[in-house]
């Protein structure tokens, strides 16, 4: 005995065949429907952000410009100059030159510190691998995405620029947004 599908059958809705007088009539109707759609949009409010004045809030995990961190209590840099971030970087945009800490010149908490720490932001692809690779959470991705400049050399960010408290130009998205 064949199985009776009962109410579960969904009939396939097929559009009528194009062409002929009926097709022309339907084409005319669809044309008017298209016009109605665009006219309706005109009456609604625009959905765009007026960018320089109005900024789209970013999510907490947004990967913007990098930040280097210091310990809050001692003021020492977290970066120990291990170059793991440079090794992880697929765009090869991080340059680290390490130097030894001495008792009279102590910069970081570890044995060594980054004497030079440069990120070439014109090459960076903002993948966040450096953040993942860092064993001390010394480098993280910030929220700033307004980094355009007139000069390529100005896009090479030095350690001082990365350590400095960045201007919070980008609004952060709140919990319910």
């Amino acid at each position, binding site marked *: 005995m064949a199985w009776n599908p009962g109410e579960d059958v969904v009939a396939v809705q097929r559009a009528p065949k194009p062409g002929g007088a009926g097709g022309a009539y339907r084409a005319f109707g669809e044309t008017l429907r298209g016009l109605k759609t665009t006219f309706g*949009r005109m009456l*609604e409010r*625009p959905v765009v952000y007026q960018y320089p004045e109005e900024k789209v809030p970013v999510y907490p995990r947004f990967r913007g410009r990098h930040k280097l961190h210091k310990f809050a209590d001692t003021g020492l840099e977290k970066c120990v100059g291990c170059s793991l971030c440079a090794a992880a970087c697929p765009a090869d945009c991080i340059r680290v030159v390490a130097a030894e800490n001495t008792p009279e010149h102590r910069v970081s908490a570890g044995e060594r510190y980054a004497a030079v720490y440069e990120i070439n932001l014109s090459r960076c692809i903002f993948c966040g691998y450096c953040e993942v690779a860092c064993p001390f959470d010394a480098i993280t991705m910030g929220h700033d995405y307004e980094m355009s400049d007139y000069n390529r050399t100005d896009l090479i960010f030095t350690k001082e620029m990365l350590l400095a408290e960045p201007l919070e130009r980008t609004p952060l998205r709140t919990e319910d947004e």
Partner: protein
Amino acid sequence: MSVLVPFAEVGFAESWWIQIIKAVVIFLVGFTLVPLALMLDRKLMGRMQMRYGPNRVGPYGALQPMADIGKLLFKQQFRPRTSVGFLFAFAPVISMICAAATFAIIPFGGTVDIFGTEVGLYGIDVSIGILFAFAFSGLSVYGLMLGGWASGSKYSFLGAMRSAAQLISYELAMGFSILGIVITAGTLSLTGIVEAQSGMWYIVPQFVGFCIYIVSAFAETGRPPFDLSEAEAELVGGYSTEYGGGRFATYYAAEYFHMVIASAIAVTMFLGGWQLPFVDPPTWVDPIVVLVKTVLVICVFVWARTTFPRPRYDQLMALGWKILLPLATANVIVTAIIVVVTD
């Protein structure tokens, strides 16, 4: 009859100095409508796409057309080495002249009495009326063709051929769509046609003609959805590929001028010109009525541009030759039969 216009009969002609003033005024009105149409195009299209459109230059972005044209005019005049110099420079001018010349016959009102002088609110009321408009619309093909050919580039030439074929195909349907009105009104003069619409606008009895006219006008002015002559990104740049700066600005302005003209002719032929239903305003309102109606028809142009995707080239040709032309012919025949039977 005036000796100034020996080529066609005119319904009414003023003395020469009034004609010069009128020419200047009409020119100014025309060139004021062009940036207005440009702005309306971008603003309205923006609103229909749920964005604002240009809003940075001046209040509400109102000076954007000025900024655009100013930027284009200050660019370097560039010319390809293989181009034909004189024609390359002259072709955009042909486009512009053809657009501006048609504006002369658009009636903005009947004859009025200004300071004791009888003045017709139109450039000239020639007896050939609408044929004049079609003559110049036919001539404007030369602007595109010569521009494309004189550029000395194969993309320009192909684009020119493409748009010439499009323009010529749609000219037929456009002419036929108007014929029904000419038969009904019994005159070619545009003022005569407007006066014949005092009882009922021709959009009602000639609705099919109106639809055909509007669709052919989209194609004729090279506006989207039939903008295969330029096709923004897909088909290089058509005839204007090699143009830049002031010459491109001329082509660009001519395109918008053509749109204004096509709208003004639609208003004159189908939408009762300066006449309003049920009310009979004083004569000084007439030009305003015509301008407002023209702007509304331009809105329809923008509306269609926002809504419809561009047809393929063979679809464009099929629409022109297989649908619009037979439909327009049938419209003319039916109108002619009705006119003869009821007469």
